[in-house]
């Protein structure tokens, strides 16, 4: 894949990208209070007095949030810091009740790591993680509910966030998209964040700068709170061009914070003449440093499932899946779980090794099953056809009870009704006809009924075998074993 270039009037520019992802931690309670974290509650119903920053309230740390941050760091191959400190980040905003956010500045809980991107052309690229730290989320301000007033809901205030900071290693919108996709997949795999960008449980701040090839990094602008991967790519494209245009016009890019407007497809400056924030970070005197030992880290490590990259490699190398199928399956852990349950059941049913049934099964799962799920707008966890039901269906094909063609019809009915494959086959009498004698009788009847075509075939029109096959299938209501039909038909036609 060639380098991504932004064309300026006088030459080409490269873009340099870094991403800061804010990922809400999956936990029952908030980072420093015992209030619930669930989405969608009544305003200020999931707010403790600590979250509301009442006078005299104090933070106490949630063990699970620490564990999730460590698990995330391990899943990204990152350095885990057994000693870390919470600092106060001081600024004023209506949805920040304390007037400071408890975050980590100098001593984050996780250090350097890596994310491997899967690019469209099949290549991979490693992007560095700089650090991960824990911090409080802010509440929500709603500016459109009242003409004079902003309404503030503190339900989200205090929910644990992991801020995952990448190194500025990305060079194209595609890479940024691939980074977010992979990161999201990993977080969902390990269950530390649900990665739901629309709901805001995962948000990206994008740092964009441009430079002529060979020059040092240019001034960067930060585009805050972009909430979809598509918007991230669009925002980068727009912003890179904007910066190039400024430079080509002889100007300098101002370092500033910007927002992406998805309706206009543009980025705009967040504030007109705001001074740079001075957050006055200092260690939070209401807390002590977070400390844990190797045993804690090992227990966290043991709790991790097989990660996507490893799983994909195993699917391809050990199970013989085509690369494409493996990629599709590993994108979501639920898909893999479904697939692996299915092939285990299938292998058992047909008395073979999973290696022997995996590739074909993966075609069915990624093709037929996912096709039907997408059409119905369902996720794999909502599939009306369970993994063991899928295994039943594929077993019926494998042992010749039904043909692949009939299986598609059976599947449609399974999807609609949730009934088992063998029940449907029985009810609809769809068993494949594999009785040689019966098929021969029908072939004879068809040949007898179509003398004209027979003559044409014998005269050289080989393709007419298809016609005869079709007729036999019609006579048998599609149930004749197609392989057998071809086998028996040809000699009879040839005469």
């Amino acid at each position, binding site marked *: 894949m060639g380098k991504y270039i932004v064309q300026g009037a006088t030459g080409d520019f490269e873009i340099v990208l870094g991403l800061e992802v804010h990922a809400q931690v999956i936990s029952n309670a908030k980072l420093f209070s015992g209030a619930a974290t669930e989405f969608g509650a009544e305003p200020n119903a999931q707010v403790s*007095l600590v979250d*509301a*920053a*009442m*006078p*005299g*309230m*104090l*933070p*106490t*740390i949630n063990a699970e949030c620490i564990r999730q941050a460590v698990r995330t760091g391990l899943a990204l191959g990152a350095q885990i810091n057994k000693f870390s400190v919470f600092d*106060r980040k*001081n600024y*004023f905003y*209506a949805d920040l*009740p*304390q*007037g*400071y956010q408890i975050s980590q500045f100098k001593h984050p809980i996780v250090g350097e790591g890596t994310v491997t991107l899967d690019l469209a052309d099949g290549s991979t690229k490693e992007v560095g993680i700089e650090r991960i730290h824990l911090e409080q989320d802010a509440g929500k301000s709603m500016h459109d509910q009242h003409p004079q007033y*902003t309404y*503030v809901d503190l339900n989200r205030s205090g929910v644990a966030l992991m801020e995952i900071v990448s190194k500025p290693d990305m060079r194209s919108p595609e890479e940024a998209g691939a980074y977010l996709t992979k990161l999201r997949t990993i977080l969902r795999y390990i269950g530390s964040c649900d990665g739901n960008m629309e709901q805001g449980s995962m948000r990206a701040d994008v740092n964009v700068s441009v430079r002529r090839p060979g020059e040092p990094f240019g001034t960067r602008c930060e585009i805050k709170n972009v909430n979809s991967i598509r918007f991230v790519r669009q925002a980068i494209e727009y912003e890179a061009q904007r910066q190039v245009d400024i430079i080509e016009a002889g100007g300098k890019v101002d370092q500033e914070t910007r927002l992406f407007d998805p309706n206009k497809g543009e980025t705009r400056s967040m504030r007109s003449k705001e001074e740079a924030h*001075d957050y*006055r*970070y*200092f260690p939070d*005197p*209401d*807390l*002590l440093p977070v400390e844990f030992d190797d045993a804690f880290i090992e227990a966290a490590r043991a709790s991790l499932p097989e990660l996507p990259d490893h799983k994909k490699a195993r699917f391809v190398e050990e199970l013989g899946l085509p690369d494409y199928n493996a990629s599709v399956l590993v994108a979501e852990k639920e898909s893999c779980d479904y697939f692996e349950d299915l092939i285990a059941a299938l292998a058992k049913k047909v008395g073979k090794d999973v290696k022997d049934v995996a590739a074909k099964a993966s075609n069915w799962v990624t093709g037929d099953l996912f096709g039907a799920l997408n059409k119905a707008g369902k996720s794999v966890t909502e599939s009306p056809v369970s993994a063991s039901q899928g295994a039943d269906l594929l077993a019926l094909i494998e042992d010749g009870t039904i043909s692949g063609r009939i299986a598609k019809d059976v599947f449609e009915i399974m999807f609609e009704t949730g009934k088992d494959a063998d029940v449907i086959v029985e009810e609809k009498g769809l068993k494949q006809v594999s009785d040689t004698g019966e098929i021969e009788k029908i072939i004879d009847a068809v040949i007898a009924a179509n003398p004209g075509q027979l003559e044409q075939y014998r005269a050289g029109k080989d393709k007419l075998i298809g016609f005869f096959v079709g007729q036999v299938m019609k006579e048998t209501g599609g149930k004749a074993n197609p392989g057998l039909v071809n086998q028996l038909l040809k000699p009879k036609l040839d005469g």
Partner: protein
Amino acid sequence: MTDLTKLKIAEARDLLKKGDISARELTEAHISAVEAADALNAYVAKTPEMALEMADKADAMIKAGGQKGMTGIPVGIKDLFATKGVHTQACSHILDGFKPEYESTVSQKLWDDGAVMLGKLNMDEFAMGSSNETSYYGPVKNPWRAKGSNNDFVPGGSSGGSVASVAGYCAMGATASDTGGSIRQPAAFTGTFGIKPTYGRCSRYGMVAFASSLDQAGTITRDVRDGAIMLESISGFDAKDSTSVDIPVPNFEAALTGDIRGMKIGIPQEYHLAGMPAEIEALWHQGIEWMKAAGAEVVDINLPHTKYALPTYYIVAPAEASSNLARYDGVRYGLREMVEGGGLVDMYEATRAAGFGDEVKRRIMIGTYVLSAGYYDAYYLKAQKVRKLISDDFKRAFEKVDAILTPTAPSAAFAFGEKSDDPIAMYLNDVFTVPASLAGIPGSSVPAGLDANGLPLGLQILGKAWDEETVLKVSGVIEEAAGFTAKPEEWWR
């Protein structure tokens, strides 16, 4: 009928146990005393109905055989402790009308033991001050006056209301807080016993925060035994406070054996200040003699970084305060000042300008500055390093001695307005108390004598971390030796 307001806690405990008096009677007497003492301006909120309800509960508790040290004892609560449904404003205008929906752990422990709340006590705004002259509710008057004078004197601060109520016989004990000396210094100014425990001994949950790494709750009582009883009641681990330490609370009263034979008492040379009033030096010397007479060994020690304690404190405390007070913004509680045609920022700026007093504003500004970009290393980080040196000074000293004896304050109480023009002159009041706050060690002030004008003077005892028992024991010996029986003339009734 004895004046019930003159009883000490230990005495009342006995009488209540025997049934000679009831909690209700004791409370009624104090409610009247509170009413009659408005001239002191010690109370900013009075809770007589609640007090009577609590007294009745206490009587029931005693009858049922569950009497504790503080059962039925009427106390005042410093306005910075959250008391459910009751005025809690840290004596600031910015918390106008605030009545919390929650109780501080310290006050809850008192109520669990059956104590009775008379009301909320006046203090310097947000605990920032050494004279109780910065309160939104006006200054507190020291029950003590100079001989032959009708001038008003400051009670010390920030716990001015706490000491005035106890010294003025309208509370048997009072909760107080100490960040740089706000329990010890006013205790010295009013002839009362004040004790600040080890940092982490009492919970800070529900205490309006000033400087988180320094704030500690403590008690004001009329004598050491009462202090031991009340301190035990409010001490203890609290999971809601991450800086609270899980260490058992000893029976503090049991420490008052009066026996300090063989103990080593340290005299820090750096506390001999140039220009210190002769009376203070003399009192300190007297204290040394009392220690020797009681069989203790007096040892000169060095705390080399003493002179840097005040400047360290006046960087660290304002820095933490500037952040702790950011929540007072007119959004969720307290004062809100709207600006015509203005937006959110205007509201913040107007609310905080109108709500905070001058001293609070000054400290927020200093704190903001020393944390700001470019200055953090030079000021805040530097101060935290010097703090470590000061703490290490004490650790080293306590390898050689069991307790340290110093004067509590560099002067007796002063007249109103005498020091309020120069903030630094005011800050110097805490020169002897601040080092212990920075190190987090326990300290007390015991009434030890009177100055030439008849105003009380105190001696400070410092102990090692978690050794309040030694502090109390030595305090008890000083108290015994000093035989301080002077009382203020009750001009305020």
